[in-house]
């Protein structure tokens, strides 16, 4: 589904991603871990098409297409979803309105009829139950005055409504209390299917207790330094990143 080859990107003059290689097949869940500032959000943003980081080399193929050639909204309509580490507030724009506009833009792209207000409401209310969210949230402005945890839950609500093919979750677990973590994980797991893939960016094993990854990668200094199975996350939890090596570590193991 997704194939990243030697991807390099800079912010300003500063190289952040220094040659990422990663293959994600349909049905798989990949966890990406790594120290603060190692480039995890930058990678997520580059995949989603944000232009604050400039791609300086490498390629990304998504469902046979050159992902990097697509505009942000085209990637979204092709099924790429990013749950933001820091969800943004949009004053005056109702949550329900944004969701409906987004879903219909995507349906239109896929040649499906747009949902009318009634059908849409039925769908979204159903998904809100899944996310254990109060319906009143629908009518509030997007993320405005939401608590940190509510914002994250709202991101996952958008995800389960939009049903993406490739979901990238950037630290969705940060700031969640333990009950919320379960609810969010339940939401994510409900989307797991043989034709979908997920990339989870996280710092903590506890998320992976609820969402079992197939692969775990360690990103450090702009490169994937190690890859392995779920046991790698446990190892990291025990030993930290010190052994992964600092910038430019010669001994790094790449898959």
């Amino acid at each position, binding site marked *: 589904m997704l194939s990243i080859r030697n991807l390099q990107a800079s912010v300003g003059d500063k190289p952040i991603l220094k040659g990422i290689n990663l293959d994600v097949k349909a049905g798989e869940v990949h966890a990406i871990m790594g120290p603060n500032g190692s480039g995890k959000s930058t990678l997520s943003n580059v995949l989603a*098409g944000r*232009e604050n980081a400039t791609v300086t080399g490498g390629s990304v193929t998504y469902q046979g297409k050159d992902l990097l050639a697509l505009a942000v909204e085209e990637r979204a309509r092709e099924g790429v979803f990013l749950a933001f580490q820091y969800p943004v507030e949009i004053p*005056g724009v*109702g949550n329900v309105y944004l969701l*409906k*506009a*987004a879903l219909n*833009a995507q349906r239109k792209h896929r040649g499906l009829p747009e949902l009318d207000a009634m059908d849409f409401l039925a769908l979204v209310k159903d998904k809100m139950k899944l996310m254990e969210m109060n319906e009143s949230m629908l009518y509030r402005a997007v993320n405005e005055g939401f608590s940190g945890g509510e914002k994250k839950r709202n991101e996952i609500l958008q995800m389960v409504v*939009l049903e993406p093919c490739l979901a990238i979750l950037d630290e969705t677990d940060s700031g969640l209390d333990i009950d919320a973590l379960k609810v969010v994980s339940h939401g994510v797991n409900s989307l797991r299917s043989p034709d979908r893939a997920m990339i989870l960016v996280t710092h903590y094993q506890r998320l992976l207790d609820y969402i079992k990854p197939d692969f775990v990668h360690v990103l450090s200094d702009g490169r994937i330094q190690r890859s392995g199975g779920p046991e790698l996350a446990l190892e990291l939890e025990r030993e930290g990143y010190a052994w992964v090596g600092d910038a430019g570590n010669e001994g790094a193991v790449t898959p």
Partner: protein
Amino acid sequence: MNSIPNTLEDLISQEYRHGFETAIEADEIPKGLSEDTVRLISARKNEPEFLLEWRLEAYRRWLKMTPPTWASVHYPPIDYQDIIYYSAPKSQKDGPKSLDEVDPELLKTYEKLGIPLHERAILAGVAVDAVFDSVSVATTFKDKLAEVGIIFCSFSEAVQHHPELVKQYLGTVVPVQDNFYAALNSAVFSDGSFVYIPPGVRCPMELSTYFRINAKNTGQFERTLIIADRGASVSYLEGCTAPMRDENQLHAAVVELVALEDAKIKYSTVQNWYPGDKEGRGGIYNFVTKRGDCRGARAHISWTQVETGSAITWKYPSVILRGEDSVGEFYSVALTNHRQQADTGTKMIHIGRNTRSTIVSKGISAGFGQQAYRGLVRMARSATGARNHTQCDSLLLGDRCQAHTFPYIEVRNNTATVEHEASTSRISEDQLFFCRQRGLSAEDSVSMIVNGFCKEVFKELPMEFAVEAQKLLGVSLEGSVG
């Protein structure tokens, strides 16, 4: 992100859609302004003596006045001798009769503008007065409204059929010497709408006037007077457009609202005069005096405006809060793009006890647009317990536009409270990226964010106008769900 300004500009630089011209023979008087011009206009309209005297008084005062210079707008001096002060479609010489007699060319014009004048075709619940250059060409639903005692007609007609009401109220809210443009208007005004709602009557439908400037080198000087008698209420809408031309055209209107005890007037405007081209050539100079007077206790006057057009806007819809517990409101969205300039705001003059006013102003600037919010809140010595809340937000698109805020506050009663909040923001890259990541196009994303910014004002607009406003800003409006 380099693509942002481009996208934003594409969005708001959509072609002006009402720029066509109607080929129709006009009955015009020669260019220029003198006492004779004033007499000529008055004679054309077969006006009673008192009105001619009133016009002449205004003209004499105007001669001694100078244009205001305090506004943040810049334009070359206007040659008042180079303007035609009266132009009417020839076919309308004898004033509007029944719709069947209206020139088909005119009906077509309004249809093209989306304002069908055939009552059957019209949106249910809206009565329209259509003003074309200097005259009213048709007023719909007149008879139906007359059944409940409501007078809704052109100003000229009111002068003929209800001179006592005109005499009683004309110039009592905006006196002839109020300001340079109001004095000019008082001298040469041609037509406009007149509304009288009798005591205790709630107007059963929205009333609206659609102003169209068509003739070249012509100024439009319309005069509107709305009176809501005790306990009456009315919602009134005003729309305006003009053809695209390279010369600037002057539009100097006066609107007076009178609300007696327990009366309510809601006045909404979607102003879409031709704004000029990208380089700032042409466009309407919109120099307008709008004021409402809450003359009785618990009277309520509300102004809502969406200002997207005009090369220059100079406009401060105001409320004089005389009656105890009376309420004044001003909700405004103003958009300036390219070389447009707007100096707009409001005045809330609190005189009565426990009077309340609310001001919500949303300014959007793009391109080289220049915008100023200018607002006065005055609490007179007698305004015990009066309250004002002002909220003034500016949104900048791109980095070559400007927004300024000039709040003037005068408080002479220490039990009065005045609150002022102001903010300036830009559409953030984060917001835009977020919306696009969810699948919306850049244009739709900007529309949605701008729409969210204007929401508090849009929700004050009557339904039909909310739709118009949405189209104008290229904004998809909320509220279709839930």
